[in-house]
């Protein structure tokens, strides 16, 4: 075990995957200079772990700014013997390649009757909460959840960032990884040996019996903090982190809500047709009879992200807004109004 940040855990997983299999290559903008911190040891080639030194230009493919061409090329390469990891830097840039994601990456295997497989990972960071305005701040994973054929991970801890990425690279299906910049500097003890966190298995971040909070990405630590707060008032909150959004660990969620009878879902994405809607609908359909209170979603509002710090801070779920939702489902009186996400 060693203390690792979320960001360096991703770098470690990439290095392990590159070492383990020559077919793994990295494709992306500015990967050669390690601009985003996951393809090297530091700012200089001479620092140990520099990917270009280690793997050479043949496997570290620094690209033009051509997201659609990059994603398509990675798909074609994956169909013909490589296992690319594509670094798309920020999630807001994925739209440039949407056609390739939906019409090629997600559909090819199915349309071609299973002839193709598509072992490729697309990494990107959700760069919200950092006052960069609407273009850089998107959290677009829900729209990809509506596209059958993709797998989607959204790690919330360093260990999961490492272990899920290894599983993603080893998957013969395409995986999109949505990382959260707000978590980049989070640290914890992580195994420095290889390990894999299986896709499709949720993590119980905290056990409890009164309310289930399903929380996604950077909402996980907020939910855990809210749970700790509520524990002081005698409310026992279970926090489930799905970790993989497709395939979703439905059983873990249903089991928990069947036990607690109450559900709050917290995520940083926009509200309408988000992952929270999906999880709510799943529960309302499958275990309606266990439910003892309304299902509350705590999400970003259906609003683009404003630049001004004074405006942006209220856009995402916080400990306070999640706690308020929990209070509501257990019929505790509300505290002073939370100027927070709906």
């Amino acid at each position, binding site marked *: 075990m060693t203390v690792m940040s979320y960001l360096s855990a991703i770098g470690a997983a990439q290095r392990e995957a590159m070492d383990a299999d020559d077919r793994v290559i990295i494709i992306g903008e500015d990967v050669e200079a390690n601009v985003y911190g996951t393809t090297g040891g530091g700012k200089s080639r001479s620092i140990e772990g520099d990917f270009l030194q280690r793997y050479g230009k043949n496997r570290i493919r620094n690209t033009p700014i*051509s997201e659609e061409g990059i994603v398509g090329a990675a798909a074609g390469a994956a169909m013909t013997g490589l296992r690319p990891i594509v670094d798309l830097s920020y999630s807001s840039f994925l739209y440039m390649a949407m*056609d390739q994601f939906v019409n090629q990456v997600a559909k090819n295997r199915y349309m071609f*009757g299973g002839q193709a497989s598509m072992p490729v990972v697309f990494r990107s960071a959700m760069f919200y909460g950092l006052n960069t305005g609407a273009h850089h701040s998107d959290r677009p994973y829900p729209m990809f959840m509506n596209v059958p054929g993709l797998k989607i991970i959204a790690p919330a801890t360093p260990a999961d960032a490492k272990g899920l990425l290894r599983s993603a690279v080893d998957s013969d299906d395409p995986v999109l990884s949505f990382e959260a910049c707000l978590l980049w500097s989070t640290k914890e003890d992580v195994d420095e040996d290889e390990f894999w966190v299986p896709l499709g298995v949720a993590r119980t971040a905290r056990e409890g019996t009164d309310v289930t909070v399903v929380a996604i990405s950077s909402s996980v630590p907020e939910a855990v903090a809210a749970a700790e707060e509520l524990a002081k008032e005698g409310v026992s909150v279970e926090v489930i982190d799905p970790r993989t959004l497709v395939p979703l660990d439905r059983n873990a969620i249903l089991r928990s809500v069947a036990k607690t009878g109450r559900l709050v879902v917290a995520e940083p994405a926009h509200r309408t047709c988000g992952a929270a809607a999906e999880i709510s609908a799943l529960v309302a359909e499958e275990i309606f009879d266990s439910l003892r209170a309304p299902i509350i979603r705590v999400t970003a509002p259906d609003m683009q992200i404003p630049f001004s710090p004074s405006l942006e801070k209220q856009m995402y779920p916080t400990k306070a807004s999640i706690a308020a939702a929990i209070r509501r489902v257990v019929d505790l009186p509300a505290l002073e109004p939370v100027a927070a996400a709906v």
Partner: protein
Amino acid sequence: MAELARDTLREMQLRMLRIRAFDERASKMVKRGHIPGTVHTSIGQEAQVVGATMALGTGDYMSGNHRSHGHPIGKGSPLGPLMAELVGKATGVCKGKGGSLHLADFAVGSLGESGIVGSSIPIANGAALSSKVLNNGKVALAFFGDGAANQGVLYESMNMAGVWDLPMIFLCENNQYALSTPAHTVTSGIISERAAGFGMPGIRVEEGQDVLAVYDAVSAAVARARAGDGPTLVEVITYRYNEHSEGLKLGTDYRNADEREAWLKKDPIVLFRQYLASQGFSEEELDGLQATALAEVDAAVAFSDASPYPDLSVAFDDLYTDKESVA
């Protein structure tokens, strides 16, 4: 022009005849309701298709578009599973899941046709990248139309192929129309001349109905690619005889009858038959090729007819490599 073996010349004509016979049959089957949806034929464009595919080796890669049957046939894919696919049978090359727009036969390097205009170009580019990374000597070719030449992803792909010297051929099938739209009304400049700005040779084959002219141009590009010298853009001027897709009836005279007549006179199969005769192929042998092609198509239809439709349940297979991932 390279001296070609008699076998190669014969095979060229046979593949053109196969495409013609296959697409004529498919057209009839659409009109009679034996093929669901629609199909886009390559009738009239056989020289362009076969000249390009035969310049590739079987191990080489290829991606294509909605005008889709010619490409795998030209690449050597057997007709039975292709026809069964068009009908939606379980024995189809894609198990009935793809249909005309999504033929793919990985056994012959066909990485898939695309119903989305322009969308499969980067797929071939990626195959060229994997060839480069794995150093396996393979070449990749993307077929696309004059219409697709206005999709930005083409230029992203050309640039990337140029920068990395990928073994790649960008093959523009300029049949002068995109659906109802004449190319000259929506194309600024000349497609082949776009290559220069992206640092690669751009070749325009004006005699696109001459299979050897296409073959020579693409062979040169393949040689360049295989030598590690990078990509080439080849634009071939050709013409489709039929409507954009079978069953479709477009109005407003977007192309005129005289023009079509003129092109019919330059039929690639007729032209090449004359050439083969001049090279000492007997009339008998040439008729035999035609008969072979027709017989193969008959057999393909029989194969399809005798095949079952897929079971309802298989609709839920093949999305992922593991079944559990499906909700």
